[in-house]
C-alpha cells in the first residue's frame, strides 16, 4: 500500500510546493567570477549584490515579490561566461543577468543575452565598446574613457605633467583598453610619452621595463594595471629609485593596492566612481551595513554591485510583471534607461551608447568620477 501511495504523495507535494515557491519570486541571474584570479573582483561584487538583495527583500521586495539572485560562477573565463549565460537564460529562465566580472567575458557572453532579448548588466566592465554589443547591454561602471580625462586633468594640475612613461599589460582587454584611453587623452592634452613598456599576465619582475622608463626621467608613470601587478610595479619602481608619482586606472581602485604596496604607493593618483570617504548618507549606510554583514571593508566593486540591484529594483517598480517571460524581459529593458538613482557611488544615470555602424547600442554609465591621491597610506580626495 505504502509503495503505491508514494508517487501520489510526491505529485501532491510537488503540486502544492512549486507554486508556493515560485509565486512572488523575481529571479535574476548573477554571473560573477567566484573562483580564479578574477574572483578578487567577483567576490566583492557578489557580496554587494547579496547585501542589496537582503535590504530590498527586508523592505517587502518589489510589490510583495522577493528578489532572488541566481548565482553562477563564471570563473573569469570567456568560455565559462558563455556557458553560465546559456544556463541562466534558457534553463533558469531568469529575468535578466548581472555580470560577468571581466570586460573580456562580457564581450563573449553579452551577445547571447542580446540575441535572447534580455538585459545583460555589467557592474565592473570598463573597456570601450562593451555596449556596442547591442541594445540589451547595460553597465553601471563608468568607462575608462570617462574616468581617465578627469584623472589626468587633476594630475596635470597637481604634478605639472610634461612627459610621462607608460607601463601596462598588453595581453588583457581591460589593461589594454585602459592604455588606449590614456594614450588618446595624453595626445589630446599634448603630454609627451617618452617610453611605453608592456608586461604579460603572471609576470612578477618588472625591473627591466622600469629601468628603461627611469632612464627617461618622466614626470609621472601611467600604469593602467590591475592591483596585483600594480603593487609590485610600485614597489620595484621605488626600489630602483624612481621618485615620479604613478597614475593608475580603474584597477588601482582597491585598498589591496595600499595593503600590498604600502609606502611605495604614496603619491599615486587614481580616478574612481566610488569614494569610501564620501559622506553622503547612502554611502555611509552602505559601508556600515557591508561591514556588519561581512566583517570587512567594501571596495568600489561591491559598491557598484550594491547600487546596481537598487537601480534594477527602481525599474521593476515601474513595470507590471505578467509572468510571461519574453514580455517581462522586454518591459524591464524598456524601463531601465530612464532610471535615475542616488546610491553609494553617488548620482547615477544611464547614457545611450552612440550608434555603432548605424545600429543602436546599449547604455553606459553617466557618472562623475572622484580623483584620489594616496597620502599617508590612505586614498584622499584630490581637489
Amino acid at each position, binding site marked *: 500500500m505504502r509503495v503505491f501511495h508514494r508517487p501520489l504523495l510526491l505529485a501532491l507535494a510537488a503540486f502544492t510546493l512549486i507554486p508556493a515557491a515560485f509565486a512572488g519570486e523575481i529571479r535574476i541571474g548573477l554571473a560573477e567570477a567566484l*573562483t580564479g*584570479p578574477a574572483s*578578487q573582483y567577483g567576490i566583492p561584487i557578489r557580496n554587494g549584490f547579496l547585501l542589496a538583495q537582503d535590504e530590498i527583500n527586508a523592505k517587502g521586495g518589489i510589490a510583495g515579490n522577493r528578489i532572488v539572485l541566481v548565482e553562477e560562477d563564471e570563473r573569469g573565463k570567456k568560455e565559462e561566461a558563455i556557458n553560465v549565460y546559456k544556463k541562466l537564460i534558457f534553463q533558469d529562465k531568469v529575468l535578466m543577468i548581472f555580470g560577468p566580472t571581466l570586460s573580456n567575458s562580457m564581450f563573449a557572453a553579452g551577445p547571447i543575452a542580446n540575441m535572447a532579448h534580455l538585459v545583460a548588466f555589467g557592474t565592473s566592465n570598463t573597456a570601450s565598446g562593451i555596449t556596442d554589443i547591442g541594445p540589451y547591454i547595460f553597465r553601471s561602471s563608468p568607462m575608462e574613457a570617462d574616468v581617465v580625462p578627469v584623472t589626468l586633468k587633476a594630475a596635470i594640475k597637481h604634478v605639472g605633467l610634461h612627459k610621462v612613461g607608460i607601463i601596462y599589460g598588453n595581453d588583457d582587454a581591460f589593461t589594454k583598453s585602459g592604455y588606449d584611453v590614456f594614450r588618446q587623452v595624453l595626445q589630446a592634452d599634448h603630454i609627451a610619452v617618452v617610453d611605453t613598456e608592456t608586461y604579460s599576465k603572471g609576470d612578477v*619582475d618588472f625591473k627591466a*621595463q622600469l*629601468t628603461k622608463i627611469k632612464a627617461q626621467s618622466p614626470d609621472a608613470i601611467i600604469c593602467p594595471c590591475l592591483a596585483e601587478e600594480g603593487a609590485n610595479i610600485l614597489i*620595484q619602481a621605488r626600489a630602483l629609485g624612481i621618485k615620479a608619482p604613478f597614475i593608475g586606472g580603474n584597477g588601482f581602485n582597491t585598498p589591496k593596492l595600499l595593503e600590498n604596496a604600502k609606502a611605495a604607493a604614496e603619491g599615486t593618483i587614481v580616478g574612481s566612481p566610488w569614494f569610501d570617504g564620501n559622506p553622503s548618507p547612502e554611502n555611509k549606510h552602505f559601508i556600515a551595513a557591508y561591514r556588519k554583514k561581512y566583517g570587512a571593508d567594501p571596495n568600489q566593486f561591491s559598491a557598484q554591485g550594491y547600487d546596481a540591484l537598487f537601480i534594477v529594483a527602481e525599474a521593476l517598480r515601474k513595470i507590471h510583471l505578467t509572468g510571461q517571460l519574453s514580455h517581462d524581459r522586454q518591459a524591464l529593458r524598456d524601463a531601465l534607461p530612464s532610471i535615475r538613482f542616488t546610491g553609494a557611488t553617488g548620482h547615477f544615470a544611464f547614457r545611450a551608447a552612440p550608434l555603432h555602424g548605424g545600429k543602436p547600442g546599449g547604455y553606459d554609465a553617466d557618472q562623475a568620477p572622484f580623483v584620489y591621491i594616496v597620502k599617508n597610506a590612505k586614498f584622499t580626495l584630490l581637489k
Partner: protein
Amino acid sequence: MFAQQVVNAISLGSVYALFALGFTLVFGILGVINLSHGGIFMLGAYAALLLITRFDIPFWVALPLAMAASGTLGLLIDVLILRLLRKRNAPHLMPMIATIGAAILMTSLAQGLFGSETRRFPLELFDQASLTWGPITIPVVQAGITALSVALMLIMVWVLRHTRIGQALRAISESPRAAALLGIPVERLFHLTSFVAAALGGAAGILIGLSFDAISPFMGQPMLHKGIAAIILGGLGDVRGAVLGGLFLGAAEVFAVTFLSSEYRDALSFGLLFLVLLWRPQGLFGASSTRSA
C-alpha cells in the same frame, strides 16, 4: 642603465634558476617531469606566510619549517602518485598527467583556504632595503636569492659528485634497475629526492614571494612555464644546467626589453631559446656524459 639591466638580468635569472633546481632534480633521478612543482612552490610560500602571520614565528624559523612542509608534500606526491605509477610500469606521460592533476588540486585547495587575492609577507625587516652602488641598485632580498641559488647549486653538485648518496643517485639516474641490483635502496632514494626537490621548490616560493610580494594560488603556473624552459635549455636533469638555463632565460628576457621592446619580450626570449636548441638539442649541459643529475 646598462649596468642596472645586467643586475636585473642576473636577479631575474636567479629566480628562474632557484625554481628550476628542484624541478630538474626530480627529472634527473626519477625520470619524471613533475608538473606539480609549481603547486609545491606556491604552497611553500603560503606555509611560510601562515607560520609568520598566524603563529608569529620569526622568518628564519618559518623558512626551514615551511621547507619541511613542502618537502613532506613532495614526499606525499611521490608515495601516493608516482610510486604507484612506477609499480605499474606506467608509460612516461602518465606521471606528467597525474602531476598536472595534483597541481590543479593544490591550486583549488589554496584558493579555498586562502582566497584568490595576492598576499604578501608582513615583513618590514626586508621591506624595501636595497644596496646602491653608483648607478646600480639591488634589493637586498634579491641579492640573497642570487647568492642562495648559486650556493644551492654548488652544494648539490658537490653532494652528487663527492658523497656516497650522490654516487648512488647517479647510479639510479643511469639505470634504476641496475642500481637496485647493486643493492642501492632505490625507492628510499626516490623518496629522499622528492623530499629535497620539493623542499627546494618551497624555498623558491618563499623567497620569490618575499622579493616580489606576490603570493597567490596562481603564482606557480607562469613560473612552471619558465622553469620548464630553463631546464630544457640547461639540459634536462642537470643541476648546473638548471641554473645556467635560468640565468640565460632571465638575461634573454631583460635584454629583449632593453634593446628591443617589451612588446616582443616573450617572442624574442623564447625564439632565442628555440635557436639554442636547434644548435644544441640536448641543451647547454645535456651531453650523455653529464646525465649525472
